[in-house]
């Protein structure tokens, strides 16, 4: 997309129907808002595996989704929703990314081939999104992104019965979304013990909040296609599909240990390395996949 977009634009005219291009602008803003906040989402990630990549996974999934429509002039909202799902499906990363793709799947299935979106269709879309997302797991865990999506759909239904304005409904969706996120620790013990709210749910509300901002005329620019975003992505992307792996800490005891040599070896094994000590004792911290770590240990037997 061009980077010379005006810094503000007029609110979506509520008398104008919400069409495919409106959804495109909203998806773009959802992506942009997540891009600005994904590190916060990463920091919250303790469930199901505390590997700190929820925000990154959702961001890469949304990026893949938006890429499908970035150059599309499609006016039909059903068609745009379908393209977003296709992109999210192909780029889905991690648990939260797969769930996000299923939410888009349900949304696009409900919108079907409709030309434009009204409040009723928005409610149906969110309800079907939730139903679809719940279907793809045997025992859904409450206090996660699934709970947040369900409460968002419920809020949309109530709001729609009060006021048939899409903007009003969207405001209520975001409000209820944050409220649901705040209550996730009450539903899931792992979150409560770690003192965090659910990361996936938080990521979802950031996307919705970005969409709300676009609807209210706020312009959010995505970093896609520029150099900084590319650097960011390569710095973030874990080396393999299994993510960041494990946070490993250990001590090496011995005689005549070469700290510099150990540091070089450890740095080759993973990320966020810390190697300190002297010739008798070295403390090591490294983030690595167990597989990569162990194989490297075996290959470097001299300090084992």
């Amino acid at each position, binding site marked *: 997309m061009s980077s010379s977009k005006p810094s503000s634009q007029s609110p979506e005219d509520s008398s104008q129907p919400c069409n495919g291009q409106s959804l495109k602008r909203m998806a773009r803003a959802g992506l942009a808002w997540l891009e600005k906040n994904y590190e916060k989402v990463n920091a919250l990630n303790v469930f*199901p*595996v505390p590997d700190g990549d929820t925000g990154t996974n959702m961001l890469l999934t949304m990026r893949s989704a938006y890429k499908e429509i970035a150059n599309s002039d499609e006016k039909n909202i059903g068609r745009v929703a379908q393209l977003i799902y296709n992109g999210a499906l192909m780029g*889905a990363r991690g648990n939260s*990314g797969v769930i996000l793709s299923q939410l888009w799947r349900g949304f696009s299935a409900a919108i079907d081939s409709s030309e434009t979106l009204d409040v009723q269709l928005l409610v149906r879309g969110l309800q079907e999104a939730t139903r679809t997302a719940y279907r793809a*797991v*045997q025992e859904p865990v409450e206090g996660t992104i699934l709970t947040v999506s369900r409460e968002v759909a419920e809020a949309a239904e109530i709001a729609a019965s009060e006021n048939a304005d899409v903007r009003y409904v969207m405001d209520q969706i975001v409000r209820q979304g944050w409220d649901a996120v705040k209550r996730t620790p009450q539903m899931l013990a792992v979150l409560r013990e770690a003192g965090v709210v659910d990361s996936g749910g938080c990521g979802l509300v950031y996307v919705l909040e970005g969409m709300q901002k676009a609807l209210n005329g706020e312009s959010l620019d995505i970093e896609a296609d520029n150099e900084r975003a590319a650097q960011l992505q390569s710095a973030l992307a874990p080396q393999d599909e299994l993510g960041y792996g494990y946070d490993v800490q250990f001590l090496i005891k011995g005689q005549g240990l070469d700290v510099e040599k150990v540091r070089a070896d450890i740095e080759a094994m993973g990320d966020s390395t810390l190697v300190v000590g002297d010739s008798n004792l070295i403390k090591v911290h490294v983030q690595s996949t167990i597989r990569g770590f162990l194989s490297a240990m075996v290959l470097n037997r001299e300090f084992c």
Partner: protein
Amino acid sequence: MTNQNHEKLGTIHVSPAAIATIASHALLTSYGVVGMASKNAINELAAQITRDPHHGVNVRYENGHIIIDLYVIIEHGTRISSVAASVINAVRFNVEKMVGLPVQQINLYVQGLRVNTSH
């Protein structure tokens, strides 16, 4: 065969069945996994008759290392590579956290996809 941990006061044995229970539980809540399957038709029949609580999970020790085989059915319309990676990650994390022993290998077999007729 069971795995042993030598402690000061004796040994701790962790049976493959115990590990299979942990893995089965992790699979129930793994997103994208909609069912378990067996390695082959004979195993499937046996699992149905005995109502095997660890259906589709096979744990064994090789030279003291834990190796887990998983046979799963995944929801059609999800990105299978991502679902598979998350499943392996979740099973590994839960087993290692609860048992305290490293898992050497997890092999995941996608035995089928469930197509949802309502779509």
